[in-house]
């Protein structure tokens, strides 16, 4: 076990994937000598060279589009989009090419590709550097969507994403980049990343989050416990496919559910979780599923973000709303 930040864990995971499979290569803006603006690829260019760690021209559609061709030729490209707000120029390649290619080829051509995107707010960044675009991708058949909640998860799931023969949108919660956790670099990687993780069992309310909000949910569960409210905490981890079963199982016990994310609530992932949980647990629910998330506005200037982003108090408020019914 090694103490690592999430950045270090991702770096180690990428390195291991590259060592294990010569077809794995990295491409993105500033990922070479600079090591990426967050240093996730630090040292990899030095050790794997120009052919496997490619500093690209400034063109996101170009990055994803050429990766499609590399995948057709048998490579496994792992791409870095520098920030959430810059993935949109590549949106066409992602939703019409990457997502559909295996389907439209009749199963003949695979598209193993990982598109890493640092996402979410909370770091006081300028515009376009704090967005949560996950719903766009989770609504798109053909893509898989993963988001790690901590360094240990990041180390494992980045490797599983790279090993997947389907394309994976890999969303890295940038405000958790510098959080530390114990990472197991020794054991063989096992288990499926496409499942929700039950982190804590409680009896009163089921709290559901993913990515940056998992820590917030755990802290909220602690705070609620002090008020005598016992919460389960579930990390969705995979946003496509969603694994709602463990949530539904838990809700069948607690009767209450609060889903938390940073993205706007309207048509956010919580809408789908709410609909599915309600479909599956209709007679067990004692209150409607509560959603805690972003208001319907573009990500505001960062001096507003402490109000815009869900925090422990906002989650507690969601719990209160649930308990009030």
């Amino acid at each position, binding site marked *: 076990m090694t103490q690592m930040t999430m950045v270090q864990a991702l770096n180690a995971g990428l390195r291991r994937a590259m060592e294990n499979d010569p077809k794995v*290569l990295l491409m993105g803006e500033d990922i070479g000598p600079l090591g990426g603006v967050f240093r996730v690829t630090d040292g990899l260019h030095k050790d794997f060279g120009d*052919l496997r760690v490619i500093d*690209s*021209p400034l*063109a996101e*559609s*170009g990055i*994803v*589009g*050429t*990766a*499609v*061709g*590399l*995948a*057709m*030729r*048998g*490579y496994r490209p792992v791409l870095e989009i520098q920030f959430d707000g810059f993935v949109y*120029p590549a949106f*066409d*390649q992602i939703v*019409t*090419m990457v997502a559909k290619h*295996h*389907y*439209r*080829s*009749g*199963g*003949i*051509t*695979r598209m193993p590709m990982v598109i890493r995107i640092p996402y979410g707010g909370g770091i006081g960044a300028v515009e376009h550097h704090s967005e949560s675009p996950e719903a766009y991708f989770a609504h798109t*058949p*053909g893509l*898989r969507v993963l988001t790690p909640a901590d360094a240990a998860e990041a180390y494992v799931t980045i490797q599983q994403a790279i090993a*997947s*023969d*389907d394309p994976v949108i890999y969303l890295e919660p940038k405000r958790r980049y510098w959080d530390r956790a114990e990472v197991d670099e020794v054991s063989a990687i096992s288990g499926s990343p*496409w499942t929700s993780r039950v982190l804590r069992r409680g009896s009163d309310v089921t709290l559901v989050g993913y990515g940056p909000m998992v820590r917030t949910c755990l802290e909220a569960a602690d705070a609620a416990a002090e008020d005598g409210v016992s919460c389960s905490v579930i990390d969705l981890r995979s946003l*496509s*496919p*969603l*694994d709602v079963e463990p949530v539904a199982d838990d809700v069948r016990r607690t009767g209450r559910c609060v889903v938390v994310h940073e993205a706007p609530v309207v048509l956010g992932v919580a809408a789908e979780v709410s609909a599915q949980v309600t479909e599956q647990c209709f007679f067990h629910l004692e209150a409607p599923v509560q959603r805690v998330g972003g208001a319907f506005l573009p990500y505001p200037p960062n001096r507003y973000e402490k109000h815009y982003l869900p925090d422990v108090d906002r989650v507690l408020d969601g719990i209160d709303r649930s308990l009030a019914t």
Partner: protein
Amino acid sequence: MNEDVVRLLSPEGERIEHEDYPLEADHDQLRAMYRDIVLARRTDVESTALQRTGELGLWCPVLGQEGVQVGAAHAMRSHDYGFTTYREVGMFQVRGVDPVELLHLYRGISHASWDPREVGLGIFTIVIGSHALHSVGYAMGIQRDGADDAVLSCFGDGATSTGDVHEAMVFASVFSAPVVFLVQNNQWAISVPVTRQARAPLSVRAAGYGMPSVRIDGNDVLAGLAVTRAALDRAREGGGPTFIEAVTYRRGPHTTSDDPTRYRDDGEVEHWASLDPLDRLRRYLEAEGAIDEEFTARVAAEAEGLGERLRAAIRGMEDPEPLGMFDHVYVEPHRQVQADRAAMQDYLASLELR
């Protein structure tokens, strides 16, 4: 047609020597190209007819552009790889894509059905321009393999306006990718003339990327062969990308849904008919003594047979089983697709019970 083009065969079928593009006229290959144009044309005519009788949802006629398509495809080696648009019947013919596969697609049975590895030709996308990037990525893969293959990337004049084609040129040039861009400038993007895409000849774009370019007569199969071959060889030897603009003309409608009378004159079409790529090749081959009546009759009969085969294939085409639509969304099982498939299965069963 702008006369500033590489041309090895005049509209009258006379051979023109060009110092940069010497070409040994191998009669077997010339005959093969003749045959390929005739068969591509047959696929085109037959498919248009099948669309008119309601058997196909759509067809994209190629009439007039087969010269450069067949010439360029003949320039490819078997390990080379091509990316095309929907209008590349000449390419499909040469690379060995069974036209029945195209019928599947335009009938709505599949989005594509050939194995790109078998024919060395990717399935095409209708999203204009986006495959230019795939071509470059594929070529970057060749580089990483250390192979001496090359990629031929075909798109239209309209496509040159897209951001993706630009980004493809940027990536290709800065990485020296072994790719040849072949633009078929057929003067139109549906109803929009090429003057709405560019103020200068398209080939001039290449210099901005530090990439050499050639403008060729797109109705001259020999120019297509010689210039593309030189460019592919340059690419495979590490010389980097080349840009070829083939000046040609789309004599038919954009698709069978289009009505070109709304936006262009018949005169233009007639002029280009007089520059037909097959006519000039036949004249040349006849003068060379490379083909005779027996040969042309044999090819004509083969084309007849192809037509019959296509009509028969259509008659035999059944609608797919509904649950087939759930196949291949993912390689590995995906919970949601499985659930939706199961629900559809139950639903279909419930319909039968009703």
